[in-house]
C-alpha cells in the first residue's frame, strides 16, 4: 500500500464542488453505492466486539476528489 502525501499543489478533482452544478446529474450512483457498502463494512466491524487497544481519533474523510 502506498500512502500519498498531500502536497497542496494539485488541482481539485471535482470541478463542480461549491458550484450550482454540484448536482445529482454529476453523481456516480454506483460509486455512492460502493462507498456506502464500505462505510457499512467498517462500521459493522468496529461496532462488534473486537479489541481496539488504542484509542484512535479519526480525522479521516472518505472523500473523492476526481
Amino acid at each position, binding site marked *: 500500500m502506498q500512502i500519498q502525501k*498531500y502536497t497542496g499543489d494539485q488541482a481539485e478533482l471535482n470541478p463542480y464542488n461549491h458550484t450550482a452544478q454540484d448536482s445529482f446529474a*454529476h453523481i*456516480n450512483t454506483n460509486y455512492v453505492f460502493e462507498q*456506502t457498502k*464500505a462505510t457499512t463494512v467498517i462500521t459493522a466491524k468496529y461496532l462488534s466486539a473486537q479489541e481496539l487497544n488504542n484509542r484512535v481519533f479519526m480525522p479521516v474523510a472518505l472523500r473523492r*476528489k476526481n
Partner: protein
Amino acid sequence: MKNLRLFHWTLLGSLLLVLALGCAGLPLASSSTAEAATAPPQPQAAPDDFILQILAGVRQDRIVNDLKALTGESPLCIESACYTVQNRLTGSQGLSWAKDYVVKELSSLGYSVTRQDWSMEGFSDQNIIARKTGTQVPDEAIYLVAHLDGVKTTADERFPSADDDASGVVDLLEVARVLSAYSFERTLVLLFSTGEEQGVLGVRSHVNALSSSELSAIRYVVSVDMVGYDANDDGAMQLWSGDNAPSLTFAQELSGIIQAYPLELSPQVISGCT
C-alpha cells in the same frame, strides 16, 4: 485529558475545513501527482460472514431516492407534505426540511434521535444526532459524521450540493437502515452536522458540549464527505488521515478491511494537509 481530546476533535474540524478549502488556500490534492511514500504492507483480513450478510442488505434504490430528494431532483416528502429543496444553506428552509427528513427516517428505524441547537461565530442551526446503544460495551461509541448543509457561492438560488455532502448523508442514512436490524456490542452515533461550510461549526459545537465521560466513550470517528463524484468510474476511494499518526495507522487498517470485501473500490490513504 479533556484538552487533549478536544485538541484531536478540533484537529478533526480543522482538517475538514482545510480539505474543503485546500491547504493554504491552494487547490486540493490529486492522487496522480501526489508525492508517494511506501508504507509497510498491511495484513488483509478475511471477510466476515456476518458482515457479508449485513452488506447484502445495502440497497442502491434507497440511496438514489434519498439523494434525489435532498438535492431537489425529486420532491422531499415528510409525512403528507412534499417540498422541493433548492439549497441546504445553514439556517435555510431547505436545510430545515432536510433535517426533518433525517429525523423522520432515523426515528422510524428505532434510533434515539435528538436535535442539538448550536450558535457559533454569528451562525445558528441544529445538528441531528442518532444513537443506537451497544449491548455489551455501551460506553464505547463509534461515530459517523456527514454534513447536511451546503454552500452557495453565486446568486443562483438552486445549489444542490449533491457531492458535498448529500452523498455522505445518504451514505449514513443507508448504513443506519441496514444496521438497524442488528444488535452490536458498541454504541453507534450518527452525527448529521450543519454549519460545516462556515468552519465546521456544528461539529465543533457538538464537541464543546460533550462531557469528559462522553469524550472518553469515543473510540473512533469517520467523516464521510464527498463520496459521489467518480467521473472516470475507476472506484478510487480516498481515506484522508491528516498527519495524526494514530489516524494514519487506522486509515491503513480501514483500507485493508475494505479490500477484503467484494467492493468495487480502490482505497488510497492520503496523509498531510495540516
